[in-house]
């Protein structure tokens, strides 16, 4: 793990991604544990719609709440939702993809066709449907985004698993009488870690955007709590009066997505033995 971090730090774009991600992670942890300059929910009637200043670095919003503090809280909220949803999606996708490749036949057909159905819906539309059924909230968002991204992980895992299953080392394992569980964990799953890791970083970026989209539409995080999408939505009407309200969360979202994509690029180069040699 430390070796991997070192490799990322040595990778030119990976270094930028890693630093940006670290800054965001610190902000998110501080935002969620209450180490913010102001209470993100505290309203200050006197200091409404103030521009960036020494007291309020990123200015204040319509209710006089500190934008910087709300941003930290919002990033925390966005990170929690995207981490949990991608965690569930990758785990579920890996298990479904592995078993589909291994058992083949009817199970494979059933799983993959169901995934095709899910993929047929645009991501945000499917998420909207799920939230409409269960009602908005943090955990509904997690569930919705997880379901939306599971098919991608299933496919990413099933493809290589199908080819690994036919490799000689799996046949060799059968001649020893190795158990199915041993073959699936040691010979298949272990060789799938690399493609899965790359996919996770990319999915994190998408999940972040999807979560912001849901909140923007009022179906994700509910006010008065902060979230990037919600802040963007609130700022929309005050765009000309207080442009910082729009700029701050927009830039934050963009940088967060960028950091995940840069990390994904770096991981793809590092985990692929072919490009790895070129980097060293």
């Amino acid at each position, binding site marked *: 793990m430390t070796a991997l971090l070192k490799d990322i730090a040595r990778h030119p774009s990976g270094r930028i991604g890693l630093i940006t991600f670290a800054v965001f992670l610190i902000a998110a942890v501080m935002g969620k544990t209450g180490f913010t300059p102001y209470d993100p929910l505290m309203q200050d009637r006197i200091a409404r719609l103030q521009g960036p200043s020494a007291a309020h670095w990123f200015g204040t919003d319509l209710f006089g709440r500190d934008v910087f503090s709300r941003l930290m809280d919002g990033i925390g909220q966005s990170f929690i939702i995207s981490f949990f949803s991608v965690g569930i999606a990758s785990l579920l996708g890996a298990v479904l993809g592995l078993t589909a490749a291994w058992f083949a036949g009817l199970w494979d057909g059933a799983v993959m066709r169901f995934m095709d159905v899910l993929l047929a819906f645009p991501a945000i539309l499917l998420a909207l449907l799920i939230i409409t059924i269960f009602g908005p909230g943090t955990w509904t968002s997690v569930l919705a985004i997880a379901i939306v991204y599971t098919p991608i992980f299933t496919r990413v895992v099933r493809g290589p698993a199908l080819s690994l299953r036919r490799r000689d080392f799996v046949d060799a394992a*059968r001649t*020893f*009488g190795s158990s199915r569980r041993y073959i699936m964990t*040691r010979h298949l799953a272990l060789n799938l870690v690399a493609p899965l890791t790359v996919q996770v970083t990319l999915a994190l970026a998408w999940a972040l955007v999807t979560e912001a989209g849901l909140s923007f539409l009022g179906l994700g995080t509910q006010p008065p709590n902060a979230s990037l999408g919600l802040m963007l939505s609130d700022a929309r009407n005050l765009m000309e009066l207080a442009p910082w309200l729009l700029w701050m969360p927009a830039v934050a979202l963009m940088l967060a997505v960028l950091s995940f994509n840069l990390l994904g690029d770096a991981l793809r180069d590092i985990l692929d033995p072919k490009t790895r040699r070129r980097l060293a």
Partner: protein
Amino acid sequence: MSLLSVRDLKVGFGPRPEENQVVHGVSFDLEPGETLAIVGETGSGKSVTSMAVNRLVDFGGGRITGGSISYTRSDGASLDLAAAAESELEQIRGREIGMIFQEPMTSLNPVMTIGAQIEEIFRLQQGLTRAGAREAACKALERVRIPDAARRLSYAPHQLSGGMLQRVMIAIALASNPRILIADEPTTALDVTIQAQIMGLLAQMKRETGTGMIFITHDIGLVAGIADRVMVMQDGKVVEQGPLDKVLDNPRHPYTQHLLSAVPHFSDGKSVRGDKASPDRVLKVEDLSVRFPVRTGLFRKHTGNIHAVEGVSFELRAGETLGIVGESGSGKSTTARAILDLVKSTGGVTQVDRTQTGGTEKPVQMVFQNPNASLNPRLTVQSILAEPMTAAGRRIDEEAVTRMEMLLSRVGLPADSLTRYPHEFSGGQRQRVCIARALMLKPSVLVLDEAVSALDVSVQAKVLDLLIDLQREFGLAYLFVTHDMAVVERIAHRIAVVYAGRVVEIGDARELLANPRHRYTRQLIEAVPSLERRRAEYSIDSRAMPSLVRPIGFTPEVEAWLGAGEDHFYRQEA
């Protein structure tokens, strides 16, 4: 004037090719109708040299850093290929200079049928109509001895075996009747009988058209049959060059001498092992058969069976090697896999008797052809060796680790190997890891499926010696599946020849190789290249292997066995 004249050719790779040279000043001439063989092991620069001639090396990240390649066109004009523009080269590549590659799998477009890919050549280069091109493509496939040529045209590359694909590649290269043909290890992936066909075909075409050929190979035995001149390369330099007989009979350079002496060469049964096996039987296979269902149509109806293995019987004694030889698709690997239950057998009995004490319920173990594919790249050697123990429900205690260390040192690997990963070893060392793994459970029978075929020739000899030593020490019985007659001659006590799913001849190795009785065995032995067979006239026998697809309920005819000695039997031929 020479057809091709290469002078002081230098090729480098990477952003600074001058500093990273792999070919250091190679010079040679090629006359029309002449065959130049370039011989060398992996990494000698033989392929790069040939790819520089048609400038394919440019697409692999290489650059010609010095020298000239002067090529004489059909109108007599001379052209320096080393300096020619890409637009000129496009007119020459594939039309005037054809190429056959080493890896047929990656040379064909996987999403197009092979028919479409061959027809394309005929349509573009010879202006044939669709129907004419289809007919020409069918003929081209028949010329390279592909059975059911008309039906195969609609196959995608993945539906054909590696040997079949290489034949398709050769058909494509021959389609435009090139003036120079570069053949980069074209027969390495093929069976000896097919190899002989292809060699015969190449020689015939060379005589008819005056094509100059550059033939690249690692097999100096193959060179004897086709080359007019030989060029031996090592580490990007030419170490010896001259007429065929001079190089083979009076090699000057020590490396040429090494190639001629260290590599197993076939000698009609003269170098068979002299030691005797014990009389204890360890494996008895009786009437083994394997059938795969053929399903056709929309509803995947079961319309027939492929009789891959039919009525195979043999016995194996402790300390004995039974060589199973045959061409690809003959069912030799399927037989091996059926004994290990990797494919379901549809009939027959396999009976194993234990010999080594302390063995488990898995007395038959296997070593696969490709050590890169049979070792999980993410596991250390310790985990790899532990797997058979774990599978047998044993704990990995001190005793197990001691056994691992003992076996590793026994197969000639360094003591610190346990903590290393497969990619840290060479191909030969990886195969040694596979052998050690197969021995973990103290088996009595080891099935070796083309176990040395993927290794470099000089490594092959060392692994064979190791296998013979291990056999004596542990009293192992080997079932040695191979297509390589030179290898089987070195290791087998007895040989079974498999053709179209059945054993056609079985018996004592020396007796069988010296006096083959069955038509197929004779054909097989005649096809083996050897140093003594100079400029051999390989006959082109375009008889196809019979189709193994049979209707449901088909009962195969069983030809009677005929005896030809105390331990030598063959099937009666119709």
